[in-house]
């Protein structure tokens, strides 16, 4: 440990002021680990020296870099899987019934980090049998970190990143090689619109049908959690859906939400929205035993899907209106 209690308190205050994220006692290790490479790259001998400079000079660029380094979260494609299976099997069919007058669905990935979540949502939408050319699906992806948004917009992922959580059939269908990396194909990435947004401040957004706010609330204190949930509820349609992280809940924070189980996925809905109709024969899950192939057959998750050689995503290419082309 090289940082003092005073230096940690300074950093915790800085992060709290700029993001409302609460770095409680015991997070000294996080500050040490996350700031080590920033300190090295910026030419400081250690993290303590980096913090000392910011305390003395108030260097805005360094302050922003420190906050970004401490608020960037690990993510992976189809993380936790259950929400994506619920989206595919229950929520999209439900919304396709309820939004038939407008043929418009809006999904928000709040705290999208490096983009794996919004692109996982986009792949789920593009592959969904009910989403045809009549539908406009917009996926809004927001994060407080400009650096993360730039990475997400590039839609470019390393081999290590695509190995995490992404089923191989989806890799070959929705990605193309980009030197040693992989890049999301235009038919998928054009569905996603990125925007910088601080959840801890008031914001204006269009009506949202589904919110993914996963593993974000855990970083806030109770007061801020309540405010964030209130803001989210203001833009969520009365029959909309809210996904939180596995260790998060609205219980005790916002009684206007109620918990609903969709298979093994937990989702929160504005009170009174009820439980949607759960199809007995829904679309196949993203992954799992049901997606395993039988003897001598092509894997079922590849069957009927365009393979490389035909244009990536060609079965739906152009059939979903990307934002700005409505």
């Amino acid at each position, binding site marked *: 440990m090289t940082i003092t209690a005073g230096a940690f308190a300074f950093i915790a205050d800085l992060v709290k002021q700029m993001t409302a994220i609460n770095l409680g006692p015991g997070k000294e290790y996080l500050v040490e680990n996350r700031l080590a490479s920033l300190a090295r790259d910026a030419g400081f001998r250690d993290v303590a020296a980096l913090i000392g400079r910011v305390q003395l000079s108030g260097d805005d660029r360094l302050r922003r870099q420190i906050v970004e380094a401490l608020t960037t979260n690990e993510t*992976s494609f*189809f993380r936790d*899987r259950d929400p994506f299976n619920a989206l595919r099997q229950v929520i999209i069919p439900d919304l396709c019934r309820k939004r038939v007058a407008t043929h418009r669905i809006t999904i928000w990935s709040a705290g999208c980090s490096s983009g794996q979540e919004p692109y996982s949502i986009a792949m789920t939408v593009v592959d969904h049998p009910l989403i045809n050319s009549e539908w406009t699906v917009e996926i809004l992806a927001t994060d407080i970190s400009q650096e993360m948004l730039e990475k997400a917009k590039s839609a470019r992922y390393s*081999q*290590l990143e*695509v*190995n*995490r*959580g992404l*089923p*191989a*059939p989806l*890799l*070959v269908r929705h*990605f*193309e*090689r980009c030197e040693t990396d992989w890049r999301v194909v235009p038919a998928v990435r054009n569905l996603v619109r990125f925007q910088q947004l601080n959840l801890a401040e008031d914001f204006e957004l269009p009506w949202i049908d589904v919110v993914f706010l996963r593993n974000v609330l855990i970083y806030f204190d109770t007061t801020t959690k309540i405010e964030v949930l209130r803001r989210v509820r203001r833009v969520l349609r009365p029959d909309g859906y809210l996904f939180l992280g596995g260790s998060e809940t609205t219980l005790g924070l916002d009684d206007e939400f109620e918990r609903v189980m969709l298979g093994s996925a937990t989702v929160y809905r504005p009170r009174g929205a009820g439980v949607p109709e759960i199809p007995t024969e829904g679309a196949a899950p993203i*992954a*799992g*035993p049901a997606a*395993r*192939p*039988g*003897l*001598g*057959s*092509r*894997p079922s998750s*590849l069957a009927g899907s365009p*393979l*490389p*050689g035909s244009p990536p995503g060609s079965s739906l290419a152009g059939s979903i209106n990307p934002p700005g082309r409505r």
Partner: protein
Amino acid sequence: MLSLLAMVIDDSSAMRLILGRIMRGLGFDVVEAPNGAEAIARLESGIKPEIALVDWNMPVMDGLAFVNAVRKKEQWRDITLMMVTTESEQSQIVRALAAGAHEYVIKPFTPDAIADKLALLGVLA
């Protein structure tokens, strides 16, 4: 409780060691084979793994030939096949999946990547 069995097929003893350690850490018993032909011989001797982790480029019988051979046999239809290989071309991944591999991990990988893929496949010890 009985452990599930994993077969690690790779001509590199170092890679067999690494994958074997990861799989044991995930609760599997592990058997190894240095190429596809020896792996087939072990299956024919009655060993029945839940999952096989298969390298592509190996002497005697390569990974794709192994996948094709396994998929032809009714009694081996329940074995989950996951390629773990340096072959990273999109066309190669498509070939392996079309032949009947369930998943594909490109080297280098992290232990988490293996665990993630097993969870995707619903194969957990």
